[in-house]
C-alpha cells in the first residue's frame, strides 16, 4: 500500500513538496512578470497602482512565504508534546491563506490591469500548474491504493485540519450523515466517495467565502 510503506510515504512527501513548490513558483513568476510590466510601462495609473496595491501585495506574499517556511520548521522541531506542532500548523495555515489571496490578486492584476502578455505568462507561470497537476494526479493514484474506509477517514481528518473548530460539528456532521445516507441508498462506493469529495470541497469553499466576507465587511467598516 502506498502510505503503509516507507518508500511510499517518502514518495508522497516528495510529490507534495514538488506540488507546493510549483504553486509558489507559479505565484512568484506571475509576480515578477507583473513588476517587469509595471516598470516597463510607467504611466501615472500604473505607478499609483504599483505603490498602493501591487508592491504591498508583493511584500505580503514574500513575508507569507518566509512565515510558511518558519511554520514548517516549527512543526518539524516539535519536541513531542505537540505544542510547537500546533503553533507551526496554525502559522502554516495562515501563511497559505495569505499566499493564496495575494497570489490570486497578483495573477489577476497581471493579465487584466498590467497587460502582461498572456503567452509569456502561460509559458513561464502556468507551466508550473502542469507540474502541480501531475503531482496531484500522482497523489490521487496513491490514494486509490488505500482501502475505501481508510480513504474516507483520511479525508474527514484532512477536513478537520482545514476547517476551523466552530464549524466542524455542524458541517462535518452533515457531511458524515450524507455519506451514510448515500451508502444506505446502495450507491456504488466510488460514486459515494466522489460525491463526498465534491461536498468536502464545497465545505472548504463555504469557509473561504465566510472568511472573505468577514474580511471585506471589516475593510468596508474601516473605510
Amino acid at each position: 500500500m502506498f502510505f503503509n510503506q516507507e518508500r511510499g510515504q517518502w514518495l508522497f512527501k516528495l510529490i507534495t513538496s514538488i506540488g507546493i513548490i510549483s504553486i509558489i513558483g507559479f505565484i512568484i513568476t506571475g509576480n515578477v512578470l507583473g513588476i517587469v510590466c509595471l516598470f516597463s510601462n510607467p504611466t501615472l495609473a500604473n505607478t499609483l497602482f504599483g505603490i498602493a496595491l501591487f508592491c504591498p501585495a508583493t511584500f505580503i506574499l514574500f513575508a507569507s512565504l518566509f512565515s510558511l517556511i518558519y511554520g514548517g520548521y516549527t512543526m518539524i522541531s516539535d519536541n513531542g508534546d505537540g505544542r510547537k506542532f500546533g503553533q507551526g500548523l496554525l502559522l502554516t495555515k495562515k501563511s497559505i491563506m495569505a499566499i493564496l489571496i495575494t497570489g490570486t490578486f497578483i495573477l489577476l492584476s497581471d493579465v487584466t490591469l498590467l497587460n502582461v502578455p498572456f503567452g509569456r505568462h502561460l509559458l513561464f507561470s502556468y507551466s508550473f500548474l502542469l507540474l502541480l497537476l501531475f503531482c496531484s494526479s500522482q497523489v490521487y493514484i496513491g490514494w486509490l491504493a488505500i482501502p475505501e474506509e481508510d480513504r474516507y477517514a483520511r479525508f474527514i481528518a484532512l477536513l478537520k485540519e482545514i476547517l476551523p473548530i466552530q464549524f466542524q460539528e455542524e458541517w462535518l456532521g452533515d457531511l458524515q450523515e450524507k455519506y451514510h445516507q448515500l451508502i444506505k441508498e446502495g450507491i456504488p462506493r466510488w460514486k459515494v466517495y466522489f460525491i463526498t469529495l465534491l461536498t468536502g470541497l464545497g465545505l472548504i469553499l463555504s469557509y473561504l467565502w465566510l472568511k472573505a466576507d468577514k474580511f471585506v465587511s471589516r475593510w468596508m467598516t474601516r473605510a
Partner: protein
Amino acid sequence: MKKNQDSIFDLSPKEEAVLTSVFYRERYGLEIIEAVKEASGGKIKLGFGSLYPTLHKLEEKGYLEARWGDETPEERGGARRRYYRITGLGVKVLAQKKQFLDDLAGWEPAWGGV
C-alpha cells in the same frame, strides 16, 4: 426605515428558498438541502458550498435563528445537528415579498393602459 423597505429586494432566490424551507418547522442543514431538492422536483440543487454561506447571511440579517439539537446520532459521528428556524422579521420579509409580487402582478395603470 429605508433598509426595511429595501429588505425584500435584499433576498436572493437562494435565500428565499432557504428561508421558505424553514417557514413551518425548524430544519438542519442537510434537511434543508433535501427539502429544496424534493420540493423543486430535483431542479434546484443546493450544494454545501452555497448552503452555509446563505444560512450565515440570513442569520446575520436576523431572518433566521439557530439552536443546537440534543440528539447525537451515530451516523454523524456523534456530532449534534444545528437547527434553523425563521424569526418574526423573516416571516415579515417573506410576507412583504409575496405582497409585492401580488401587487405587481395585479397592477394596472391609472390612465387606463399603456
